[in-house]
């Protein structure tokens, strides 16, 4: 069943950056760009590396280990060594807090 989970305060994420969020045994990556927020699965689809250690450039998150790249708005994999897209999650802001919808 889908549910909205408070992930963090919006101020916890700097512009064009990413942080890690763990909840109920799952891990997520949360992004901020020009005051828009995005959420994806936290682990790279190639070798289960935490994406939050990677570098954000514009709308691309790059895996810290093997440089697999994803568009974090859509989860689209952008070429070798990643071919499987990243799952994305809906987000909403309420009173300075970021919520993601999981389940």
């Amino acid at each position, binding site marked *: 069943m889908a549910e909205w989970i408070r992930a963090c305060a919006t101020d916890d994420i700097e512009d*064009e950056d990413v942080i890690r969020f763990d909840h109920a045994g799952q891990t997520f990556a949360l992004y901020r760009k020009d005051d828009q927020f995005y959420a994806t699965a936290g682990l790279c689809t*190639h070798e289960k*590396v*935490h994406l939050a*250690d*990677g*570098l954000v450039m514009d709308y691309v998150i*790059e895996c*810290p*280990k*093997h*440089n697999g790249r994803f568009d974090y708005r859509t989860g689209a994999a952008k070429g*070798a*060594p*990643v*071919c499987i897209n990243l799952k994305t999650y809906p987000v909403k802001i309420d009173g300075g807090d970021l919520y993601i919808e999981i389940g």
Partner: protein
Amino acid sequence: MDRVVIIGAGECGIRAALTFREEGFTGTIDLIHGEPHTPYERPPLSKPCADGLSLKPIMGALDLGPNKITLHQDLAATAIDRTAQQVLISNSESLAYDRLLIAIGAKSRPFLWNDRHVPNLAYLRTYDDAVRIFERVTKGSRLTIIGGGFIGLELAVQARSKETHVTLIEAAPRLLGRAVPAEIATVIEARHRAEGVEVICGANIVDVDSKGSITLQDGRTIASDLVVAGIGSVPVTDIAAAADLVIDNGIAVDGQLRTSDPLIFAAGDCCSFPHPLYDGKRIRIESWRAAQEQGAHAARAMLGATDDYQSVPWFWSDQYELGLQIAGLSGEASQTVRRDLGDGCFILFHLSDNGRLLAASGIGLGNSVARDIRVAEMLIAKRSLPDPAALGDPALKLKSLLTA
């Protein structure tokens, strides 16, 4: 151009083959693979993984058929006939080419004692090597590793996780002498010692007996159940040399990865090329990422692209919970700036006389240095002259220097 032959189905050869198709090439592609297994990734053979040893196919290795790429598995290229433009393979067939890519990789440098191979000495290069080694790396068994480079150290990590007794012998005064700054090598050595690895640097071997017992000059004798040598690798050049291609620390290629024969290219661990970022100095790179990039670059060059390969060399290694990453080449650096990231994590920036960033080396928990190393890589590629004070200030976001 209708016929492409690629020798070697590692990261480099596979990426090259798929790049031809991505670029719209419709001719034949024959890929010669010297091993009996589906083309697989090598890093997992020596790098820690909770699930143990497994054969992980290279991304794309399972897409060869649908892309009409013919894999000649468990067959070796035995000769190149440049006049007839064909490659002879070990089942006596020959494959004609319009363009040939040699992506045959490197092999373990042999450890010779009195000019002879040592019986029962193992090397870690292939999946079959790894299977043989890990059968014998068991709780309570004794493993001796000759060579304090990445292969030996990563094997030591795996062996300790299985509670094997590990002795690591290095002839040089410290570990990782070739590619890693002393400050970082010291951290890695301490971590291995804390884990119970007996590290012996500056070791001078005076005898190796037929059972693999090693005697050092200080009189110590080290008996073990398995000895593995990890003393570097050498490029595979024999068939290129036999075909009279120019060899210079590997198969010599130009900036577009073309050999001395304009129809033949070489890429990956087996080739040396002039690097534009380092005054055109001829270098050879042994790295997972460079192998892929060079394979793709060579394919595009064979299809007519004219740009030079100039990616910044980059590699990583995991040592227990520590992750090391290095971008660039620090050989010509004259000053070093240290950036401390907390929890013992730090990055060293290596700068030239005139302040150009040449390389960055970092070590920290997990992938904690990855982001800054990636930014450093971009700064190196841009030939940046970053403010050393900014590099050393962890409060300043490194990414801000990219637009400075």
